[in-house]
């Protein structure tokens, strides 16, 4: 708070002073400058605090509802807990060393330890990341991303993974996959950081690679490694409450504004632009998935509509602040169709049991989004990258930069490799400590009773 107050006091002082001196002195101007800085910070901070809250809302209750509605009644709490426990555990990890490993200055692959226990992360902005908001705001905003990413994976092992093992796995995964990925793409000096001289500059506005590719491909590995749910695909395993999933999906849509538009790190025109592409992609994804269903099965379903919107959102994440509104529509439209195909046709053919389609939506969506960003990114939307003369650089194919798509693919490749190898390592490490899968009897009885000793619904009078 201090610098705000100082600024205001200075402003007041200068107001008083100025009644004595005939014209604007240097002191007055400096006071004004400080006041303007404080007021710029207030506007940007208002938006970023709100965005942080929105991204947390995405995990709980958003994702928790989306996922838990899709499982059977006996697993509703267990599935919710997989999201919730990330909100709790990853927060503590972030506090201790996570933020430092992701955003500290370190190697090209991982941050250093200077921010251990958030040492030195205070109200002063960190100009490397966001020059107008408190460093702590940036820290807590990024924390919300670190929470939701492993929570997304949980979609792949829902209905069959033990609680303790899930926590252990996800915590390990955060260290082995997330922190490196975040550092490489967004961290100071990171290998893929386009804005800080990374040797392979990748445009990832809000985490298409960092969040969706990593979690999606990790989910695929988990789903295959763990094997199918008992009874799959013979026993019926209908979503127990699409009503919950629907609420969750709407909250994801709304929360995603914090995720994508918040990634502008300021309440700027760029934030608005990301907001718009995000919204358009979600809408287009819902429409195209519904159309695909309509043609294939004759009926557009509610589950289809919300899945399409989530697919659109996941896919536009990477390009949100780089592409024009029309591109948001195009990206969303492609996302809806491709993810529909993955989830309804390809998955059944390949035969793995990714219960909640974390791979089909986030993995595939993330990968497409990464690529499409290389095509649609344009300096008319984002002019932050400049050449020596201060002119904005061409970004994607539409700007005439036909090679960026290679960088994007390289980034995606690195993300996928990291996710696959890292996930296997984490699974093995976890198994050294504790069995991952529930016993058959536990799976039959359900997670709620066997893992948590509760039931989601007690509707008897």
């Amino acid at each position, binding site marked *: 708070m201090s610098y705000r107050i100082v600024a205001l006091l200075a402003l007041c002082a200068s107001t008083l002073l100025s009644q004595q001196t005939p014209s604007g002195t240097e002191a007055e101007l400096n006071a004004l400058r400080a006041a303007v800085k404080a007021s710029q910070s207030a506007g940007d901070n208002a938006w970023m605090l709100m965005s942080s809250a929105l991204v947390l809302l995405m995990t709980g209750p958003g994702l928790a509802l989306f996922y838990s509605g899709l499982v059977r009644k006996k697993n509703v709490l267990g599935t919710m807990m997989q999201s919730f426990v990330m909100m709790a555990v990853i927060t503590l990890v972030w506090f201790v060393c996570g933020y430092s490993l992701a955003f500290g200055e370190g190697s090209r692959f991982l941050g250093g330890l200077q921010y251990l226990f958030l040492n030195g992360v205070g109200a002063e902005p960190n100009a490397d990341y966001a020059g107008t908001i408190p460093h702590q705001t940036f820290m807590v905003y990024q924390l919300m991303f670190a929470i939701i990413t492993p929570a997304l994976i949980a979609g792949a092992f829902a209905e069959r993974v033990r609680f303790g093992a899930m926590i252990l796995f996800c915590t390990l995964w955060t260290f082995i996959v997330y922190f490196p990925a975040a550092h490489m793409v967004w961290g100071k000096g990171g290998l893929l950081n386009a804005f800080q001289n990374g040797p392979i500059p990748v445009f990832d506005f809000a985490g298409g690679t960092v969040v969706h590719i990593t979690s999606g491909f990790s989910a695929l590995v988990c789903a295959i490694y763990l094997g199918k749910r008992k009874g799959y*695909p013979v026993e019926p395993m*209908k979503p127990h409450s699409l009503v919950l999933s629907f609420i969750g999906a709407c909250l994801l849509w709304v929360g995603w504004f914090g995720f994508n538009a918040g990634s502008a790190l300021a309440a700027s025109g760029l934030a608005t632009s990301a907001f718009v592409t995000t919204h358009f992609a979600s809408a287009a994804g819902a429409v195209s998935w519904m159309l695909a269903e309509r043609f294939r099965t004759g009926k557009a*379903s509610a*589950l*289809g509509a919300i899945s399409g919107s989530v697919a659109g959102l996941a896919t536009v994440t990477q390009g949100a602040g780089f592409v024009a509104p029309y591109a948001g529509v195009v990206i969303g439209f492609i996302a809806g169709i491709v993810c529909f195909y993955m*989830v*309804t*046709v390809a998955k*059944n053919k390949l035969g793995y049991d990714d219960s909640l*389609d974390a791979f089909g939506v986030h993995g595939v969506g993330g990968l497409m989004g990464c690529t499409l960003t290389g095509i649609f990114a344009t300096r008319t939307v984002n002019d932050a990258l400049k050449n020596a003369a201060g002119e904005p650089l061409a970004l994607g194919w539409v700007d005439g930069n036909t090679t960026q798509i290679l960088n994007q693919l390289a980034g995606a490749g690195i993300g996928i490799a990291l996710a696959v190898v890292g996930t296997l390592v984490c699974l093995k490490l976890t198994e050294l400590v504790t069995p991952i899968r529930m016993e058959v009897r536990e799976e039959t009885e359900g997670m709620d009773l066997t893992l948590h000793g509760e039931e989601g619904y007690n509707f008897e009078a």
Partner: protein
Amino acid sequence: MVKIEAIIQPFKLEEVKEALKGIGIDGMTVTEVRGHGRQKGHKEMYRGREYNVDLLPKIKIEMVVPSSRQEEVIRTLSAAAKTGKIGDGKIFVYEVVEAIRIRNDERGETAL
């Protein structure tokens, strides 16, 4: 005494209840059940997985009545529940050995 048990279409419940009241049958117990028979079910589809749902929502009504009223009740009930389409349901009749009213331990037909 006999128990008359009817499996009917859920949307017919109100009508049947009124018809039975009309002939003075007040005591009954109703259960939500799902039925399988000649009536075709429907398909549901969740992310590409298809489910053939062949257990359809039905309502089961149970009444214990004096044997003398058996035919009257069956006729009334059947008339009210009929639409003439497959799925209208069935009526089954069972012997009842004894009936007791918990409130005052009355037994037999007076307990109904």
